[in-house]
């Protein structure tokens, strides 16, 4: 029962409802007043005789994401794939293999490193990249702080927002004209509005009021010098799709995505992992809880959730019954204001 959505039951009188097929009728009434017209009887169905078995939902999402990656690689001069060590970027790496093997990736992989990492995520990153044999670049927020590009928020301060500067500096330094990222439209109401290929001006800004029309699957990647694109092959994937794909493809993930015991403190309604950057205040109680992480970001602003999900199937069951969204459960950065994600994206955020 828990994996079924609860619906208000349909009244009995609708149970036998069928769409009317009245070819050529000028007007049709079914019952007292019910207007359904099938104008062309040939066009009502979707199946054709001898049609091949249709690709399933994940096949279609995969095929589209692979298509987007190949378009970006073909149309842009210097693309880069952004890798955070999280589940979505792990899926991106698998999709890049699907798009370009047996060839090499036609772009480097770049990690924007806040310096506030979970050890498990860095280990995972290095192992994954070693297995792929592709080039890894690291753009460091600490470097941006050391060079005075951004103010130091202090040892416990979130570096999430600072990443935008580090990212834009790296884009300029390497001359990247497209960044492939793992953002999804179901994560946030501003992301729900964004194109698959999303334009950034010379200042790295997203202008949500003047996005390029993006019809069909015609993704055009032309930009002028200094401008760039963000490309989101996972735009139409949901959190559940990502996990089902991880299960189907046996994609390895950092262990913190699964239930484990660790000391945490509750702060701003979030469970933060105690670490060198998250030091409990005298009035905070450190608890040893069984938790997992639903997203992976800056360790100072990414909350854990109580969980006993030890396997991919457990996680799928857990999120299918969750009442709280992925980012709502785990991200401090989205709580600043009504439009925090939009505001950060305008500044160049992922």
């Amino acid at each position, binding site marked *: 029962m828990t994996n079924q959505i609860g619906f208000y039951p349909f009244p009995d009188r609708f149970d036998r409802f069928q769409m009317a097929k009245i070819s050529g009728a000028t007007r049709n009434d079914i019952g007292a007043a019910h207007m359904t017209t099938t104008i062309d009887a040939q066009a009502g169905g979707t199946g054709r005789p001898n049609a091949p078995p249709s690709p399933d939902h994940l096949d279609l999402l995969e095929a589209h994401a692979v298509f987007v990656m*190949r378009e970006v690689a073909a149309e842009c001069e210097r693309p880069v794939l952004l890798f955070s060590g999280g589940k979505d970027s792990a899926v991106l790496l698998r999709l890049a293999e699907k*798009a370009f093997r047996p060839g090499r990736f036609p772009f480097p992989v770049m990690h924007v490193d806040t310096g506030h990492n979970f050890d498990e995520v860095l280990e995972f990153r290095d192992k994954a990249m070693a297995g792929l044999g592709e080039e890894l670049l690291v753009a460091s927020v600490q470097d941006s702080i050391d060079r005075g590009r951004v103010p130091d928020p202090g040892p416990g301060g979130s570096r999430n927002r600072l990443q935008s500067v580090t990212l834009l500096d790296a884009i300029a330094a390497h001359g990247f004209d497209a960044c492939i990222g793992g953002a999804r439209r179901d994560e946030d109401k501003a992301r729900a509005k964004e194109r698959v290929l999303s334009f950034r001006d010379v200042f790295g800004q997203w202008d949500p009021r003047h996005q390029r029309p993006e019809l069909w699957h015609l993704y055009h990647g032309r930009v002028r010098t200094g401008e760039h694109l963000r490309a989101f092959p996972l735009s139409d994937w949901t959190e559940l799709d990502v996990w089902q794909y991880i299960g189907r493809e046996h994609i390895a993930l950092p262990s913190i995505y699964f239930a484990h015991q660790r000391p945490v403190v509750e702060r701003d309604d979030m469970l933060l992992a105690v670490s060198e950057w998250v030091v409990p205040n005298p009035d905070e109680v450190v608890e040893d809880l069984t938790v997992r992480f639903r997203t992976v970001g800056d360790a100072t602003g990414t909350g854990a959730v109580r969980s006993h999900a030890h396997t991919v199937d457990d996680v799928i069951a857990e999120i299918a019954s969750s009442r709280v969204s992925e980012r709502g459960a785990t991200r401090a950065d989205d709580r600043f204001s009504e439009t925090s994600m939009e505001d950060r994206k305008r500044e160049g955020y992922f």
Partner: protein
Amino acid sequence: MTSTPGAEPASGSSLLRFATIGSVDDGKSTLIGRLLHDTKQLFDDQLEAVASASRRHGVEGVDLAFVTDGLRAEREQGITIDVAYRYASTPRRKFVIADCPGHVQYTRNMATGASTADLAVVVVDATTGLREQTRRHTCIAALLGVRHLLVAANKMDLAGWDEATYRSVGDEVDALARRLGMATVTVVPVSALLGDNVAVASTRMPWYRGPTLLHALEEAPAGAWAHEGDGGARLPVQWVVRHPGGGRSYAGMVSGGTFRPGDDVVVLPGGQRSRLTSVETFDGPLDEAPASLSVTVRLDDELDVSRGDLIAPAGSSAEVVREFDATLCWFADPPVEAGRRFRIKHTTRLTPAQTVSVLSRLDVGSLELESTSALGPNEIGVVRLAVGTPLAVDPYRANRVTGSFVMIDEQTNATVAAGMVGVPEFAAVPQR
């Protein structure tokens, strides 16, 4: 347990992509907010955020339009500027929802949302009937190949739950849909504000015995996009894969039909003939590659094939053109006239192009083509185009991939038009 946002539908159910269209303030975003709310697709934190945003913007109660109107400017003005994509699922099927803006100036964004839709939900204020913008949107949806309409006769609460009002909307819609060549039309009387007949059957309109909007969405034909056209399989070459041991394969997404190893094919626009020796993905060889899959194919000859070329069955190939007539939805402010230069992106090819002439403009009220020499912003019309590289095209109604293109401004790289090969079937040329 009754509520699980994002839960998986039962196996065997399909995916329906739909777009909401219609005029500004007729209630599109409120309807989608209501649908998501009443089917428990919203998480607690999302609902709380919508409620607090409603308070902040001085709205009485909860403004369900804020579920999809997520931009700062949208909430300030109470309008939709750009399309929002939402994902929902019921035990019956999955939905990808494109909530489109209604303003004329954002027609380009509506076209973006409708271009991949299987079905359009036309939202009509039942108290006013169809407006010009409703007709324009429905017309654009028809041009884009949408053949199934689900009409929400909205604001029935303001119409006093009146059957005659509903029938009047139905008659107007029925006439328009027939002219536009729609395959199915279903009209549901709803109140997005109060929820009647959205996900829950209304008790206030006993004269109505049809489905709720949700039930109609679950019953509607899906997958029209992937199954569109029967003019033969097409593979626009996206990427040439060079194999370490020598040899090449060609990557792309299949449309319009199925490729199988052994198929005799032709490579366009050059016209070289060959045979598919294999069809594969990263996961291995396939016996067949149906539409919508991204695959790589190998040919048995060492041909010169590159990105932008089209692989098609030898028996049912596309037409190679240097000059052709097409229907445009023009998005830019400066009007398009004869002699203007652009770039065109058609399948995976980018080519210079020029307007030879502007032939006609579509009057969205009368659905007649009238002669003109220019198309202004958000107008629809027929133009003759010349291209710098021969293109392998199909009429849009035969294949949405090889029949579509976008026009790009050479200076700004803005996308200034959506184009469809051929002229609209429904449009009448007036007798003079």
